[in-house]
């Protein structure tokens, strides 16, 4: 590659390294067929000098085909200086200490952090990291060290601080170093100059990455894992493009590896150093492999044990909160079959919703967030408090807003009313969410009453249900006859959907 040094750039300032960005850019570049395979030749139509130092990155950053839309917007024909300024300088220079960015990070957020701090465009920073990493390995070291020692945005300490106390991680890093160093010494002895020049950076990089992996925060690891997954996972969304990416990466590695080897040893002599390398590798594996494996296995089993212990503790806590509590209550109320039945029902439902729906027991004690969960909550309460079965059927669901909460409260009153007065063992509750309204029907087959001749307290209750519904734009109707049970129907138009037609005001035939 032609890059040596670029006067406009202070190497201290712009290490940036996303190998993936490099691959993506190079793939796109090749696709465009605008340039020769080798980076040294300029694309057709490029106005600058062929040997413009730093031409590599400059061309890569050319707006139309650098593979990064964020570069666009400024056209290079306006003159090189102008164009360069546009490409290099993005946002205005930031202030404050240098931090690893969270927003635009691909790997560790180092490049993004530098871009934010210096005002240099992010792709340019990344490119410099990639190029310096590939040419001398410097970019790799700089990146890893920055990752290790720069705190992330919003964090007080750097990863290095945490790594100091991670003895196992340090041991692992040392083992890796011990494994790599002899290998690299051998390659340099054999005259594989390309690789030997990388030995230092590779060792530092690998050791640093191990420490980072062991000590980085969970969100950071997750984002790194996402990048790694795009390279290693088999299927899933976008599986094809991932496979293509992997093939591209593997292809580049194989071609560059073979190219390096063939450049050094053009004939069959090639095989001899290779055999030597293989033997030495085998020796290292035999010597250090078991140790390394054991450390890795220890790490894994330690993690698994911790996960198992946590899971067990959580399950124990939940079973205690729900099942054991209920069993204790049942023992105390053994003389009241009705209460025992109600308790058993409530517990059964809670356990089932935990086992099959993944809802935590006790979470229903929290404020319900949807209508359906609110109805379940209501059912549980009424069953527990009044010893009556509430058969619930819900259709659809909706987030609970103020109006629906009022509807729910009215439904609760109606249900409690039925539990207290009807004398029926079961109350049916049907709630349906439709695009333009939500309706709830509370029905019992109890003694019923004559709505024209109700006693004062019942009328009062009906009025309170009705008034509550009316305040929120809904309506309520009660239908009953002596001996025929009672049905309260509540309807609330939905305003959240931007449709407040009260079309469900008299659904069914609840006049």
């Amino acid at each position, binding site marked *: 590659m032609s890059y040596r040094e670029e006067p406009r750039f202070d190497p201290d300032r712009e290490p940036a390294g996303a190998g993936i960005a490099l691959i993506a850019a190079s793939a796109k570049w090749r696709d465009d067929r605008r340039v020769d395979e080798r980076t040294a030749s300029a694309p057709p139509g490029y106005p600058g000098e062929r040997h413009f130092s730093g031409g590599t990155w400059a061309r890569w950053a050319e707006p139309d085909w650098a593979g990064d839309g964020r570069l666009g917007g400024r056209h290079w024909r306006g003159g090189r200086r102008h164009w360069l300024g546009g490409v290099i300088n993005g946002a205005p220079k930031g202030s404050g200490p240098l931090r690893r960015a969270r927003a635009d990070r691909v790997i560790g957020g180092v490049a993004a952090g530098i871009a934010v701090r210096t005002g240099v465009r992010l792709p340019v920073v990344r490119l410099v990291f990639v190029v310096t990493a590939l040419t001398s390995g410097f970019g790799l070291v700089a990146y890893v060290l920055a990752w290790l020692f720069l705190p992330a945005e919003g964090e007080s300490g750097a990863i290095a601080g945490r790594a100091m106390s991670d003895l196992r991680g340090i041991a692992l890093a040392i083992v890796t170093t011990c494994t790599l160093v002899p290998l690299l010494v051998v390659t340099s002895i054999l005259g594989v100059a390309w690789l030997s020049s990388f030995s230092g950076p590779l060792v530092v990089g690998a050791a640093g990455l191990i420490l980072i992996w062991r000590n980085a925060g969970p969100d950071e690891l997750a984002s790194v894992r996402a990048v790694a997954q795009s390279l290693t996972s088999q299927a899933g969304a976008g599986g094809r493009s991932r496979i293509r990416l992997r093939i591209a990466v593997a292809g580049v590695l194989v071609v560059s590896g073979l190219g390096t080897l063939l450049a050094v040893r053009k004939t069959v002599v090639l095989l001899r150093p290779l055999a030597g390398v293989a033997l030495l590798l085998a020796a290292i594996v035999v010597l250090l492999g078991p140790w390394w494996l054991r450390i890795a296995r220890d790490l894994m089993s330690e993690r698994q044990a911790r996960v198992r212990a946590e899971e067990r503790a959580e399950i124990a806590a939940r079973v205690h909160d729900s099942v054991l509590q209920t069993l204790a209550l049942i023992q105390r109320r053994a003389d009241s079959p009705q209460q025992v039945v109600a308790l058993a029902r409530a517990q059964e439902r809670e356990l*089932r*919703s935990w086992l*099959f*729906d993944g809802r935590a027991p006790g979470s229903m004690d929290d404020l319900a967030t949807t209508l359906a969960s609110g109805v379940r909550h209501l059912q549980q309460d009424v069953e527990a408090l009044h010893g009556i*079965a509430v*058969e619930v*059927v*819900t*259709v*659809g*669901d*909706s987030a609970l807003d103020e109006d629906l909460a009022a509807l729910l409260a009215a439904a609760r009153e109606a249900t409690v009313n039925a539990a207290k007065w009807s004398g029926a063992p079961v109350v*049916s509750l*049907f709630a*349906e*969410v*439709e*695009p333009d309204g939500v309706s709830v*029907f509370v*029905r019992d*087959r109890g003694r019923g009453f004559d709505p024209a001749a109700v006693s004062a307290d019942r009328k009062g209750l009906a009025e309170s249900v009705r008034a509550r519904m009316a305040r929120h734009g809904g309506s309520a109707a009660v239908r009953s006859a002596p001996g025929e049970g009672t*049905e309260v129907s509540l309807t609330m138009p939905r305003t959240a959907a931007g449709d407040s037609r009260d079309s469900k005001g008299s659904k*069914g*035939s609840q006049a």
Partner: protein
Amino acid sequence: MTEHQDPPRVFIVDDHGLFRSGVRAELGDDVQVVGEADDVEPAIAGIRQCLPEVVLLDVHLPGGGGQVVVREVTPDHPQVRFLALSASDAPEDVIAVIRAGARGYVTKTISGADLVDAVRRVAAGDAVFSPRLAGFVLDAFALQPGGPQPQPQPSFDPELDQLTPREREVLRLIARGYTYKEIARELYISAKTVESHVSSVLRKLQLSTRHQLSRWAAERRLA
């Protein structure tokens, strides 16, 4: 249905012995229990042997879902009718059994008298929808359900993919806890018409290729 017609011959499939004897006791003399089984294989063998009129079928069995039993028996013995009986709250399980060919679904909390009534109705060839099943079906055939809704696939017969307004009304009333008789009175139609609406819903449920239903079935590896 008067008391002294021949009581329907019933076969009970449930993996809990306690529950089977409980059902037996509740059904009493109103039906004739001709056999029991606790898993898929013995159930298939037993039903083939006894040829009952109605099979009370648990949705969840150790050796597979109840729908396996329905699928195995129905081709050879179409006269055997199935009534699903379950404590399960999962709609897809229930829908899977209905799609396999069961004539109805009731929850295990049903009272003895209601269960006898349901058995008689299934024996007579009617469909039995509990409020909960009606809710599931309304959900499955929802016009504009919330959340990520897959596009309904173009069906061979688009009629099958939606319920008529009348069928919807009937289902709503069932979900509200109305009996067929009450529904008939409510809608000023005959009980027979209510029956035919329910049967038509059952047919749509079994034949529809509506995306959501097939997805439910596919999840149970039935599609």
